[in-house]
């Protein structure tokens, strides 16, 4: 029993070392790469007095845009090409979308289609 036990312990230790290496490969190394990359830029858009403000923005690919509803009335952020759409946003609710590729993305509030905005995504 004791021999078998020590044998199993050795195997266990080997297994732990191997697992540790796997952890290094999968988690530690990419974390180091991520730290070296610049943080994703963020741009804020307010929804206030039934308008998107700023109504028109130009951002680089990879930018995250965050909309916040400041009105007492619900609004949505809904793109005309259906590439992004928020739920109904109550007061102080937020919606975010990261624009991966270049293009012009116009959007409206589906409750108040006279509210329009556009995000231009351009390499800078």
């Amino acid at each position, binding site marked *: 029993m004791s021999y078998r036990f020590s044998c199993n312990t050795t195997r266990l230790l080997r297994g732990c070392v191997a697992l540790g290496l796997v952890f290094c490969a999968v988690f530690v190394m990419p974390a180091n790469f991520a730290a070296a990359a610049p943080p994703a830029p963020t741009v804020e858009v307010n929804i206030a*007095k*039934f*308008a998107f403000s700023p109504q028109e923005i130009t951002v680089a690919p990879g930018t995250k845009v965050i909309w916040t509803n400041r*009105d*007492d*009335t*619900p609004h*949505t952020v809904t793109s*005309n090409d259906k590439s992004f759409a928020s*739920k*109904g946003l*109550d*007061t102080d609710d937020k919606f975010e979308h990261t624009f991966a590729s270049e293009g012009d993305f*116009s959007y*409206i509030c*589906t*409750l*108040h*289609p*006279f509210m*329009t905005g556009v995000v231009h995504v351009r390499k800078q």
Partner: protein
Amino acid sequence: MSKYDPTNPGHNPARRQALSCLAAWTGAAVVWTVAGGVPRALGATSTGTPPAAAKDALTFVQISDTHIGFHKAANPDVIGSLRRAIADINALSQTPAFVVHTGDVSHLSKPEEFGQAREVLQEIHVDRVHTVPGEHDAIDEGVNGYLKFFDHDGNGKSWYSFDQGGVHFIALNNVLNFKMGRMAALGDEQITWMKSNLAGVPHSTPVVVLAHIPLWTIWEPWGWGTADSAQAMALLRPFGSVTVLNGHIHQVLQKVEGHISLHTAMSLAYPQPKPGQEGIGEPGPVTVPADQLGKLLGTRQLSVVRGRHELALIDTPLDR
């Protein structure tokens, strides 16, 4: 603020003048009859108590824009306001045949808001409450969430018709089919349905149309109109008596086009600015002093006298 004392209305002339202005704005307690489509004011009831309707009249009540789920400063207790309206309806001397709700039942289209609305509306002593969806009832998944609670004919459609008391009623959905920078619309499918629905109705039959957003353009920059309303009006024009009942703008306005009269109603949640009102800039909730709110919210009683094609409308605020 001091309370208005109805037993001593002369104690503050300036205040009385202000109140009469408010009454004029809301159209409160003004009795209209529509003869041949042309309304004329019969007179105002000083107490807001409606005169008794003729015995053979079909009487029904319109409520609108309850916004169940709203809890901001403009009205922290929309359920309380709805219950006050229900007490008024249940106290009417002539029990209405039914109630119509012209949309924005909920504030955020949440199932619990629809559920609570349906539960409270059942406190009205009528057989049916007919509803149409407002844009607040069509958030996130169109009208699907609304239809789970208010599918009137079981067809899974938000538009339908019914006949009662010799009157043909059409309930419409004009809160979908929006396009960028354009007002909401009825859409081709609904216009086609409306055309076939009206095809078998004699032109002498009074028609009442229910829709949330006004079917005439009141103020386009705020979306206070329906993009394809002209097509609907063309279908209604041959009829001798057409009454369109709308909500959405939380105030009483009227328009007459030939034999078609169009009326918007007060809300039961909060007031909104006058169309394009200077210094406000957007159609959001207007917060008024607490003792003024009940004067700007209210119900509408309608009577249709068979054979005369007359419709009497009485708008009654919660506080009179």
